[in-house]
């Protein structure tokens, strides 16, 4: 396996920001009420983590050691603001629902963690692979949690898809059960319970798998 593929695999699976490192849980819990909200935040976080990782890696020889954190935060804040503006311009209804959690991506330790531990020490290509892996890993966690919570809370999947994909997507809603069997799943306590069970299940499976290394925050 090439080193770039290893970087990607590690970022998605063994060092997944959500279930292995437990990073970025605030937006994960808050926004994963439906699959569409989760997809919106996943897209926004992906853009920020990939953009900032690539820019930090490109500028790594010019970023002074003493001022690296202000530089990282400046770059991450720029990409977060760009994402917020684009979302407000082209997906306004979704922006109104998830804007607060898009804006706090700037303080997301998952993104700052990858910038500090990986992007600032590696060339652009591996940094890009690491960012893609981190983004995909976070998106998998968000969408899985969003699907489970939406099913439990509303008995449906892809409700409000028109917010993200335009008016034609209004028909995409799959109403699998008439009413959600566990309405609590739509609220914060439900998010903690569902996420806790999901993370425990993943940890259980990964412990039985002989190839999976023990998760930890590795940089290089």
């Amino acid at each position, binding site marked *: 396996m090439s080193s770039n593929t290893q970087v990607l695999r590690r970022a998605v699976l063994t060092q997944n920001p959500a279930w292995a490192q437990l990073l970025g849980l605030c937006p994960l819990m808050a926004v994963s009420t439906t699959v569409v909200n989760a997809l919106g935040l996943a897209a926004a976080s992906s853009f920020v983590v990939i953009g900032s990782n690539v820019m930090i890696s490109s500028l790594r020889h010019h970023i*002074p050691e003493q001022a690296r954190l*202000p530089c990282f935060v400046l770059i991450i804040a*720029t990409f977060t603001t760009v994402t917020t503006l684009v979302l407000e311009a*082209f997906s306004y209804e979704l922006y109104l629902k998830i804007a607060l959690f898009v804006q706090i991506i700037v303080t997301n330790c998952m993104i700052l963690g990858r910038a500090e531990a990986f992007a600032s020490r590696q060339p652009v290509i591996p940094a890009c692979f690491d960012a893609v892996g981190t983004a995909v890993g976070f998106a998998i966690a968000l969408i899985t949690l969003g699907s489970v919570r939406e099913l439990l809370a509303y008995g449906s999947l892809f409700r409000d898809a028109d917010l993200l994909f335009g008016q034609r997507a209004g028909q995409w809603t799959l109403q699998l059960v008439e009413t959600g069997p566990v309405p609590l799943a739509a609220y914060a306590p439900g998010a903690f319970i569902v996420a806790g069970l999901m993370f425990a299940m993943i940890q259980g499976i990964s412990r039985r798998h002989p190839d999976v290394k023990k998760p930890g925050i590795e940089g290089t």
Partner: protein
Amino acid sequence: MSDISLLKVFTPLLIIGGLCGALLVMTDQLTAPDIQANREARTRALLEEMLQQSLPAQTEIDADIFGSCSEWLFVRTQTTGYAGPIYLTALWRAGLSSEDTEGLSLRVVGHQETPGIGDFIDHARSPWITDLDNSSARAYAQLDAVSGATITSNAIRRAAGQIFNQVEVFCEQ
């Protein structure tokens, strides 16, 4: 830290700041027209929902006060809540001669009140403010404070009084 070290630290920081600023300016230029159109459409939808009829296309909805004193007026105002300014849009409907026949409906369009405690003023979260639709000046003046959010509810009561005064001044001119 010597001057040379300071220069070594701050020069890259300034250059990176410049790059980030340029990216932001470019994005702002590209998205500003769409954002403006989205905000206007949302404001117009809110006003039409309050008025329960379409607004004429040429209505300048950006004005602080607009409409007709003989029918209805929209007033935009702000008051100070617990955690910062509360921005309101109000619909005043003309009545006959006594203050009890005037009706005022309020909508909060921006606030920073505590979620779960003071955000009952947001019509998307609670019917508290919509239940007051078309209430008179006297009804707003006698509004009960909400337990746990006295400053917030008093701010709304103060804003209603302020709006009635604004309407009076506007219509006297």
